[in-house]
C-alpha cells in the first residue's frame, strides 16, 4: 500500500478500479445527468477538477488528520472546494458556468470523491494523491460518457447533442444524428434507462475482464507474489 506505482494508479483509475464500473460508487450523479453524452462529459470535467483539488488538499493535511475525526474534516474540505469552484466559475468562466453550473452542486453528493480521499489520498504523498485524483476523475468521465452515449443513442438517436454549448462552437462537429427521423425511446432518457444501460455496460466489462485473465493464464502462469514484509 505504501508504495504504489504510477502505472498501477493509472490502470486502477481508468479500468481495474473504475469509480463506476468497479467500485460502483457515484451512481447518484450518474443516474441523474447521463441522459446525453454531453451532460456526462460536463459532469465528468467538473468532478475531475474537484477530485484533483480534494486529493491535493487532503494529502497535504494527511499528517494532521486523525482517524477519529477524519470524515467530518474530509466532508468539510470537499464541500468548501466545491463551493469555491462554483463561485469562481460563476465569476470568471461565466459562459461555461451557465452550462456546467447545474452539475456542480451535484458533485457534493458524489461519494466517490470522499471514497478516494479516504482510501488513497489520506495516506499517500501529494504527487501520487493528485495522480490518483486525476485518473479516477478520467475514469469517472469515461464511465459517464459511455453511459450517456448509450442512453442518448437509444433514447433520442443523437450523439453529443449540444456539445457546442459546453465546449464552444469549435466542437460543433461532435454533434451527430445517429438515427435520423427517430421517434425517441423515453425509457432510456428516464432514470430506469440509466440502470439498464449501466447493467449492460457492467456485463460487457466483466466479459472483457474474464477474457483478459484467461489470456494471461494461457501466456504466463500466475506466480503467487510473496507477502510483503510487515511494516513496522
Amino acid at each position, binding site marked *: *500500500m505504501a508504495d504504489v506505482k504510477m502505472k498501477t494508479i493509472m490502470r486502477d483509475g481508468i479500468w481495474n478500479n473504475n469509480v463506476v464500473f468497479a467500485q460502483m460508487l457515484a451512481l447518484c450523479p450518474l443516474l*441523474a*445527468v*447521463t*441522459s*446525453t453524452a454531453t*451532460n456526462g462529459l*460536463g*459532469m465528468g470535467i467538473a468532478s475531475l477538477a474537484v477530485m484533483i483539488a480534494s486529493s491535493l488538499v487532503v494529502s497535504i493535511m494527511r499528517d*494532521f*488528520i*486523525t*482517524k*477519529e*475525526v477524519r470524515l*467530518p*474534516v474530509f466532508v*468539510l*474540505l470537499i*464541500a*468548501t472546494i466545491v*463551493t*469555491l469552484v462554483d*463561485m*469562481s466559475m*460563476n*465569476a*470568471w468562466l*461565466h459562459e461555461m458556468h451557465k452550462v456546467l453550473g*447545474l*452539475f456542480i*452542486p451535484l458533485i457534493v453528493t458524489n461519494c466517490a470523491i470522499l471514497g478516494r480521499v479516504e482510501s488513497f489520498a489520506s*495516506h499517500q504523498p501529494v504527487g501520487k494523491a493528485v495522480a490518483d485524483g486525476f485518473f479516477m476523475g478520467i475514469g469517472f468521465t469515461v464511465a459517464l460518457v459511455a453511459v450517456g452515449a448509450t442512453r442518448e443513442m437509444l433514447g433520442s438517436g443523437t450523439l453529443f447533442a*449540444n456539445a457546442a*454549448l459546453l465546449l464552444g462552437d469549435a466542437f460543433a462537429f461532435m454533434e451527430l444524428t445517429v438515427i435520423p427521423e427517430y421517434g*425517441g425511446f*423515453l425509457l432510456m*432518457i*428516464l432514470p430506469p434507462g440509466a440502470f439498464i444501460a449501466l447493467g449492460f455496460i457492467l456485463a460487457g466489462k466483466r466479459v472483457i475482464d474474464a477474457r483478459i485473465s484467461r489470456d494471461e493464464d494461457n501466456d504466463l502462469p500466475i506466480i503467487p507474489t510473496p507477502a510483503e514484509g510487515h*511494516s*513496522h
Partner: protein
Amino acid sequence: MSLSKTTVTTPSYRQRIGYHGMLVGGTALLASALLVMGNTSTKHVIAQRHAEDVQQMLSEVVPPTLHDNDLLHDKFELDGKEIYQARLENEVSAVAFQVAEPGYSGIITMIMAVNKDSKLLGVRVVSHTETPGLGDKMEAARSDWVYSFEGKQLSDDNHKQWAVKKDGGQFDQFTGATITPRAIVKAVKAGMQFFANHKQRLLSYEPGPESAISEVKENG
C-alpha cells in the same frame, strides 16, 4: 498496515479529545475563511455577470426598434417587481419584468416582456437549477420551446389555454419533464395577470426621482 503505523508514530497528544475538537474546529474555521474570501472576491463579478445576462435577455425580449431609452437603468418598482420600461419618444411601447416560480428543483427566474397591446413579446429564463438534459429545454439555446409564448395574449375567455397540453392547455410539455414547463406557464400567466391588473401604471411614463438622479449623474 496503516492502522498499526498510526498508533506507533502518532504522538500521544493526538489521541486527546481536545486535539480532535481543535482539528475539526480549525478546519471549519479555515473553510469559513476560504469561503468568505471566495465570496467577497467573486460577489461583485458575479453580480456584474448577472446584470449582463439580464441585459442580454432584455434585448432578446424587447426588440431594439421598440425603444430609444437605456432599458437596464430605466426602471421603477411596482408591487415589489422591477419594471423595465421601453419607450419611443417618451411613449411607452412595452414593459419587461421578472417573474419567478419554483420548478422541479429550485426557483426558475424568467424575464418577460409585454407590449402596449397586451401581447406577449417573449420570455427568457434567466436562471434555474432544473435537471440537466430533462428540465433544461426551456433555455433558448437548447430548444425552441420558449418561443411558443411569443404573441400570446391573456383574455377572460382563454384562461384555460394557459396550461401545458397534459392539463388541457396549449403549451407542449417536455419529454420526461412536466413540472418545469408547468411552472413556467404558471409564472408567465401570473405575469400576464400582473400586467392586466396594472396596465394603467405600467404604460404611463412618469419620470420619477430615480431617473432624475441618473440624468444628473450622466450630466455631471
